[in-house]
């Protein structure tokens, strides 16, 4: 076997030359190792460490760690409520979301395609806007209360928080479950039916148990969102306090010991609950095969299915979609009231509004870029098990940390770390905080997408003579380009939307959602019209993101089956 390799590179442009040089370098193990360990170091030192170290450092530097009796009691009840609300809402979301996801996957039609897009809305509207919309819908004088003739059908407090959390966790469940159903081998279900199980029985005894890991993942994501959400929760909380509202209130009241302790408690409690659920749930055997043939047969009949579909549609419409879109009415009224010109001209409070929008998008852009550069190698590492298996496993577990831990608590830690230990200016603290908070979204999306490519494709390319960078550039990247784009957009919108950590970090600078919280809560004096329009602007930009996401998702790469 004579080597037939020839080095007749056609390096026409300088760019090409650089590329060729990089491709050749990527064949060297020490260089690939350097890239991977660099990204890993970024993840461990810049993303994860500050999230934990800040809060510990702060606790160590506080002069006194004692809390007043009443403050302690408030904190305790607030933290407990956080979990009560989170667990309740996530369970309800699972019950409501699975049938809808089912409908979307198994009854493909124009209607379900539209439903599929609509289900994303609460995920993409900034939660502050969502909170405002839900507040107006359920308890505002122009909302649903009108129909019932009462001043306020649901007043701010626990129930309204639940309604809010139900709405914004719902799309998480639908999204995850749609993915699960799409990947599911339907043969199992058909097999169950040929063995005599009615459709409902087959799903209950076969499909759901097989998809249990997916259901669990959806549940945990919903729970994390509920525990973490700050901006909107503050808006609808009224006098009620859950964990994050307590921290925010304590911060406003200058109780720094309470802020630090509550943050730590929330962080630790979240980690424990998640670990517990992750460990216990898989051991929990699905209940034995108890069957109620006549009942389940009825549920599987055409009428039963009709009722179920109608039910899940109604829940989606009344509890999720309408409250979320309700913002359109007050916003439209404001436009009709003629303040659009004022707003666009930047008069009155609008000057600050536009600069906050600019800040939001600037921070988002930077955070997104940083995450793409440093997140991509880590995504590859997780997906392809580069380095040792143990290292991959550790990183895999740590990546989710910023999602699991309530962002306000995380913000408290990050803020202390970067401004006191790192002595960074506020703007950069904001950028780094947003990088940490959004890191998991990008890495997870990319890792999943890379895992979706058959390993054989990359292997075949390598044996055809392609160096690792060339394989990545010519095979992996083109096949995941759409996930990369949608991952980036996701990170971007998450960053624009972020209120919890931002609240904790910002002292002078205010991003758009943080400013809007002030507007809605009345800390800053604005008229109701201005308030509605401000929220409207934020929603509009987010809708553009939704449209972009959809377009990307629809433009499937050529030639793929």
């Amino acid at each position: 076997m004579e080597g037939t390799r020839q080095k007749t590179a056609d390096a026409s442009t300088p760019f090409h030359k650089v590329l060729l040089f990089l491709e050749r370098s990527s064949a060297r193990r020490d260089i690939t190792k350097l890239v991977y360990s660099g990204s890993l170091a970024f993840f461990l030192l810049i993303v994860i460490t500050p999230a934990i170290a800040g809060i510990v450092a702060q606790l160590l530097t506080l002069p006194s760690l004692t809390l007043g009796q009443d403050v302690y009691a408030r904190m305790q009840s607030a933290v407990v409520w956080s979990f009560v609300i989170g667990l309740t809402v996530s369970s309800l979301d699972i019950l409501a979301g699975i049938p809808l996801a089912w409908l979307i996957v198994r009854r493909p039609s124009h209607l379900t395609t539209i439903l599929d897009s609509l289900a994303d809305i609460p995920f993409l509207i900034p939660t502050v806007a969502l909170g405002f919309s839900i507040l107006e819908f359920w308890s505002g004088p122009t909302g649903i209360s009108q129909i019932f003739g009462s001043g306020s059908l649901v007043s701010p407090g626990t129930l309204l928080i639940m309604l809010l959390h139900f709405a914004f966790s719902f799309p998480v469940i639908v999204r995850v479950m749609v993915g699960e159903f799409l990947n599911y081998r339907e043969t199992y279900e058909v097999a169950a039916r040929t063995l005599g199980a009615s459709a409902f029985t087959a799903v209950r005894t076969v499909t759901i148990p097989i998809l249990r890991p997916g259901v669990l993942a959806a549940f945990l994501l919903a729970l994390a969102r509920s525990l973490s959400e700050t901006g909107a929760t503050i808006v609808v909380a009224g006098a009620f306090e859950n964990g994050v509202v307590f921290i925010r209130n304590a911060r406003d009241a200058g109780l720094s010991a309470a802020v630090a302790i509550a943050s730590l408690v929330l962080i630790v409690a979240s980690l424990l609950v998640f670990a517990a659920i992750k460990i216990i749930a898989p051991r929990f055997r699905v209940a034995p095969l108890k069957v109620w043939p006549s009942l389940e047969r009825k549920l599987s009949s055409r009428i039963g299915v009709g009722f179920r579909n109608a039910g899940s549609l109604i829940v989606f419409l009344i509890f999720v979609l309408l409250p979320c879109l309700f913002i359109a009415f007050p916003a439209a009224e404001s436009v009709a009231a003629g303040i659009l010109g004022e707003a666009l001209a930047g008069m009155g409070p609008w000057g600050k509004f536009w600069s906050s929008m600019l800040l939001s998008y600037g921070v988002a852009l930077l955070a997104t870029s940083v995450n793409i550069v440093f997140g991509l190698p880590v995504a590859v590492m997780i997906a392809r098990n580069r380095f040792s298996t143990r290292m991959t496993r550790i990183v895999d577990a740590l990546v989710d940390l910023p999602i699991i831990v309530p962002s306000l608590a995380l913000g408290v830690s990050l803020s202390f770390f970067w401004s006191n230990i790192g002595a960074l200016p506020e703007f950069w603290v904001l950028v780094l905080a947003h990088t940490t908070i959004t890191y998991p979204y990008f890495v997870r999306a990319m890792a999943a997408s890379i895992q979706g490519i058959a390993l054989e494709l990359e292997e075949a390319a390598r044996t055809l003579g392609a160096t690792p960078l060339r394989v990545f550039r010519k095979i992996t990247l083109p096949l995941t380009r759409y996930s990369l784009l949608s991952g980036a957009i996701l990170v971007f919108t998450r960053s624009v939307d972020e209120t919890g950590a931002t609240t904790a970090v910002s002292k002078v600078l205010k991003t758009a959602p943080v400013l809007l919280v002030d507007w809605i809560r009345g800390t800053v004096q604005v008229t109701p019209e201005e308030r509605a329009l401000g929220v409207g602007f934020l929603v509009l930009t987010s809708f553009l993101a939704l449209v972009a996401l959809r377009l990307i998702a629809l433009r499937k790469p050529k030639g793929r089956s």
Partner: protein
Amino acid sequence: MPAISFTNITKKFGKVLALDRLSFDVQNGEYLCVLGPTGSGKTTLLRLIAGLLRPDEGAIYFDGKPVNRLEAHDRNAVYVPQQYALFPHLTVLQNVAFGPLARQKPEKEALDAAWKTLEMVRLSWRAKAYPSELSGGMQQRVALARGLASGADLLLLDEPLGALDARLRLDLRHKLRELVKQSGFTAIHVTHDRDEAMSVADRILVLRGGRIQDHGVPPRVYMRPSGIFVANLIGGANLLEGIVDTVTEEISTTRMRGGLMIRTPRAPLPTTEQPVILAIRKETVEISSRDIQRDNVLKGEVREIHFLGSFREYLIRLTNGDVIASRRFLEGMESEFKVGENVTVGFDSRDIIIFAYPRQGLRKELEIS
């Protein structure tokens, strides 16, 4: 000088031993088939040669040079996985040109080479199509063309025909060998199908549980298998249990169940009273309704008849309860013997191979996974 040489290669996955001290050579230009059941380590072997895996112990040599430290892209050994791994986002032509381009040939030269290879596999008319638009057989040919055009000289084919319909496989296996030979490649082709292995291979390497069971040209492996496992895997031979009764200068006799005596060759091993397995290929067993002249003539009853197109297989229960199969070619619409019919069965001692009875029992010895 051998093109590829394995010396004492061991590969473990966790606690599972995938390959156990494997040593063999592949000659330059040879077409080697690795035949073995699922889990025998076939794919691992290919991936080791490709450089996608590294051995835990031992060394691999290409043309006498060790390649353990050589990266996959520098080995000139193209891996063609089971489902072909055609790049879904590239056209057929771009797929085939991928190799030369990756090896930094000028674009025109690469595309020319790709085009020529596509003409060779008669697919240039589909050059602009995407892989998903092709039938399974066409995809297989594109994968082959991609390997042939890559500038490598070694093809590693993992079940290249496994995804195709049985009848199509029959047509394509000769074409596959012809193309590989025409292009002067060395090929290692992994399969679990014995007919496929025999029809394409210069030599067959039988693998089981990460160990070599046999290695040789197809007629030798088929006619004189190295052991019971190989006799069953590659020949589907009758395997009868017995005990050596007498051994003389020219011949031995073996005592079967029920005291039935069979004249067996004076093979290297028998000593009296040793338990043995007799392997008798089905086509060497004659059936007749009359008396026949054979070293061994036995009586039996037809139990089952399997029609297989160009031949029928008769399962005959002998008077001692053992069942023996006979393969008969060129019968017409009706089988010559019917189920339940009493027949005479005959075979010669030179067509019998004697193996020592396996220590772990016959069933265990034949288990394929």
